């Protein structure tokens, strides 16, 4: 295997210092921290590509030592999405070095660029683009150095396999060219990028660098860290959001085997012990002893949609064209609901923190080391330079789960026990009960068709909480900070503006609608704790729009695939749809066995990233409402494909995860708190319910910009299932999840 390129924990903690040009990260210009949206360009700077906009120094991205080893730095985090491998491919391609010669350093506040959050399918667009361009410019510098060395014009030189070759047959290797701070210069506005037709690394499937370690038990995860002197800690969370710790006698607990300290600060309560199971036993004892004042209740779950929709909202018209009230010959109206849903990481969130000599070091699986650092510094009342956040892989997060919260827990406990590394992992019931959920959403669609079966008018309204309560400086976004004796207030929620959007992400249809109005109703008050989950509002909006398009097609007596093509101009959108139509073998008015249905859906994620179309078939057992997924065929256009198998893996994962969300998942609660606290009360898709097959077809676009892949499939999958259930049963279900009980009720057996 490609051992030198492996991003194992040991390698990540290893700091190469022996070479000539290993330069620690050059400070980035200050600027807004990117959230789910695009990186802003600093005013007055040239429009550099990707994250070079905010971190323009070449040696912020690429270093080379006297042995020819290359270190590539990214501010993005490996979350299991395979970004490490794709970024190594970008660097290897434009640098003309073997992938094995590259070590990748991921997000670290003292070593890598600040690329904000690893979110919104931005990693290839931001970091991949930066590394691609930086690598090309570094290759250009190496060729200039060789030109001087060989006394030849640069146009008689080219790079190959870590060396510069001259037309006259001479060559000089990279390691003999680098001498000092050769790459310590700002990137230029243009890069000598290769012709994509000559690519040998980009566009070819490369085995992921992390998989051999993961299947053999290598220490890959923050959960696997065990530095000398480490203690295990657990946090006693309150019984519900509003509870306050009133009484506690820790005397007996501090005498339990292995217990080192009980840490209490207001209603934040934790225990540290020598052994992990000892910490868990002490946690149970503490939970039993602690007395809480339980104030505050949740809304009635039976009427939660009405309750949320009646809350005050800030309304923004995000599309207004033509005469939205225009009447056709046939009008349709429909309302769609999506419940609170859980990220549901398989491994509860974990962090290791060490407070030593006034410095707080935190190893974390956060999606954003820099914003987490700033937020921890606020919570700890220290300058941010005294906090160092190092990203280490954890269990997949799929958005803002408890990764940042557990880092705060670890930091608070470490501050109380200086000099000892503190490892905190949440318990399953806390991960399920306390993570910030994907917000509940409501949408209402209305449209009119003309007598030729075309959409003449469109009105769409979507109601949602924020999809972004990520830490960004103020401590109140960290769970523990809200329970301290001197509590930090939760910052006011903010919407993510268009064009990317939050609750209104993908709220604007890509279809040609001459008269249209789309209104985003942003609801600040949050009855349940919420934040970003994979796809944000796109999951619900694509489910709604693509269900509604099928309803309109049905009303127009049109084939749903042909109906979509009838309203689409973008050739890349049409291409993924036609690819799926052909690969699936979609036939108009196909005769299907009783109980079988087929469904189709399409979206371009955020209306500006990857294109994805899905066709599937499924069977509905009428007596029970159970769905059995058959074959699923999908096509995706992510622009220039870097690691095709990585894209396939992400899309397969999106389809399976979205099938789980869409068929099963709903956070449950009563007036006293969250009641879905484990995998029996929050069931997800298991092996016997997997689709019969999932075929992913990639439409590669060599030379086109990277579009990102991670969130393209979730919305289309939800709608394809709903459309197939309609095809199978004649029942149109507009509420997620499409559970067996809901389907059985809808078909009235």
């Amino acid at each position, binding site marked *: *295997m490609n*051992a030198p390129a*492996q991003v194992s924990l040991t390698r990540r903690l290893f700091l190469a210092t022996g070479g000539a040009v290993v330069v620690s990260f050059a400070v980035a210009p200050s600027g807004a921290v990117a959230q789910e949206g695009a990186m802003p360009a600093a005013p007055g700077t040239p429009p550099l590509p990707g994250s070079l906009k905010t971190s323009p120094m070449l040696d912020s991205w690429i270093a080379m030592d006297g042995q020819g080893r290359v270190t590539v730095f990214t501010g993005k985090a490996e*979350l*299991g999405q395979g970004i490490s491998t794709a970024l190594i491919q970008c660097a290897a391609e434009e640098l003309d070095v073997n992938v094995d010669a590259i070590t990748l350093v991921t997000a670290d506040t003292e070593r890598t660029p600040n690329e904000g959050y690893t979110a919104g399918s931005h990693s290839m667009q931001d970091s991949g683009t930066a590394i691609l361009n930086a690598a090309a410019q570094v290759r250009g510098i190496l060729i200039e150095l060789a030109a001087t060395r060989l006394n030849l014009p640069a146009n008689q030189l080219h790079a190959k396999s870590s060396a510069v070759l001259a037309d006259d047959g001479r060559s000089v290797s990279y390691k003999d060219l680098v001498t000092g701070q050769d790459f310590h210069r700002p990137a230029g506005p243009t890069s000598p990028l290769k012709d994509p037709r000559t690519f040998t690394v980009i566009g070819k499937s490369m*085995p*992921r660098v*992390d*998989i*051999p*370690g*993961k*299947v*053999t*038990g*290598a*220490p*890959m*995860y923050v*959960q*696997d860290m*065990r530095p000398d002197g480490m203690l*295990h800690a657990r946090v006693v969370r309150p019984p519900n959001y509003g509870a306050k710790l009133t009484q506690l006698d820790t005397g007996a607990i501090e005498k339990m085997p292995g217990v080192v300290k009980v840490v209490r600060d207001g209603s934040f309560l934790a225990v540290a012990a020598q*052994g*992990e*199971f000892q910490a*868990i036993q002490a946690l149970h004892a503490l939970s039993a002893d602690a007395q809480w004042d339980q104030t505050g209740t949740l809304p009635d779950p039976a009427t939660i949609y009405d309750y949320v929709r009646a809350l005050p909202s800030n309304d923004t018209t995000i599309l207004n064209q033509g005469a939205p009230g225009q009447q056709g010959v046939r009008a349709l109206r429909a309302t769609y609901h999506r419940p609170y849903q859980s990220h549901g*990481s*398989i*491994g*509860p969130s974990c962090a290791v923190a060490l407070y030593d000599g006034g410095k707080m070091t935190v190893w974390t699986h956060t999606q954003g080391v820099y914003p987490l650092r700033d937020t921890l510094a606020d919570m700890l009342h220290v300058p941010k330079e005294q906090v160092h956040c190092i990203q280490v892989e*954890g*269990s*997949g997060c*799929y958005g803002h789960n408890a990764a940042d919260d557990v880092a705060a827990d670890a930091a608070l406990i470490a501050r109380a026990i200086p000099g000892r590394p503190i490892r905190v*992992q949440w*318990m*399953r019931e806390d991960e399920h009960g306390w993570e910030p959920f994907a917000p509940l959403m409501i949408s209402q669609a209305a449209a009119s068709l003309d007598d030729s079966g075309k959409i003449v008018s469109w009105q769409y309204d979507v109601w949602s909480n924020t999809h972004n309560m990520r830490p960004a400086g103020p401590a109140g976004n960290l769970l523990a900070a809200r329970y301290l004796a001197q509590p930090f207030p939760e910052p006011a929620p903010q919407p993510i503006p268009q064009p990317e959007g939050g609750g209104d992400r993908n709220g604007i249809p890509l279809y040609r609608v001459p008269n249209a109005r789309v209104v985003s109703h942003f609801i600040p008050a949050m009855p349940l704790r919420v934040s970003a989950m994979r796809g944000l509002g796109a999951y619900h909006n694509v489910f709604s729009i693509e269900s509604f398009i099928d309803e309109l097609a049905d009303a127009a007596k049109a084939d749903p695939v042909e109906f979509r093509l009838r309203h689409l101009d973008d050739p890349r959108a049409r291409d993924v749809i036609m690819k799926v139509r052909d690969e699936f073998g979609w036939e108009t008015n196909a005769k299907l066995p009783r109980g079988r249905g087929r469904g189709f859906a399409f979206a371009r994620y955020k209306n500006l990233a990857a294109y994805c179309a899905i066709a599937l078939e499924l069977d509905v057992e009428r007596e029970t409402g159970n769905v059995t997924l058959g074959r699923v065929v999908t096509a995706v256009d992510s622009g220039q494909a870097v690691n095709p*198998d990585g894209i396939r*893996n*992400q899309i*397969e*994962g*999106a*389809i*399976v*995860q979205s099938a*789980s969300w869409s068929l099963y998942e709903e956070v449950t609660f009563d007036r006293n708190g969250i009641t879905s606290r*484990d*995998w*029996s009360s929050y069931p*997800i*898709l*298991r*092996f*016997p319910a*997997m*689709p019969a*097959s*999932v075929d992913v077809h990639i439409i590669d676009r060599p030379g086109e910009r990277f579009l990102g892949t991670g969130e393209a499939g979730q919305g289309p999958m939800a709608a394809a299932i709903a459309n197939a259930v309609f095809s199978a049963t004649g029942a149109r279900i507009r509420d997620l999840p499409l559970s067996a009980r809901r389907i059985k009720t809808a078909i009235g057996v």
Partner: protein
Amino acid sequence: MIVLNINGNPEQIEADPHTPLLYVLRDDLKLNAAKFGCGLGQCGACTVLVDHEPVFSCLLPISVLEGRYIRTVEGLGTADKPGPVQRAFIDEQAAQCGYCIAGMVMRAQGLLEHNAAPTEAQIRDYMAPNLCRCGTQMRILRAVRRAAKAMTASLDPIHEASK
């Protein structure tokens, strides 16, 4: 003190006999593969083999394990020399975050030791206790089929020669 047979090695364990095996593997023996997922026997991230049967190590106390044959992913192979099931998972690129994967590998190993040529339905049923949240299941299923083929071929020289 309890002596456990871990991957063929006798290990002397000082922990409280009520301690579930998972914590002994991770904290006392510094074996990383088995993971804490739920502590409830609902997700399979902690799956190891005991006497050829997959078990939830997060629930099983070490007091009942003396003298029994315990295997973890570390006992199947290494990144340089992976075992056939590990090899199949690498060949199929059957992981994303990978937190569940060691448990998946062990359950698949358990299946193939009982049933060298499982049907698709048998694989899906047998793997049902283990959860993957990244949605890598289609690849995991392919990896199990690939491993079954490879293991059958290596046991059967006639089959091997006829390929």
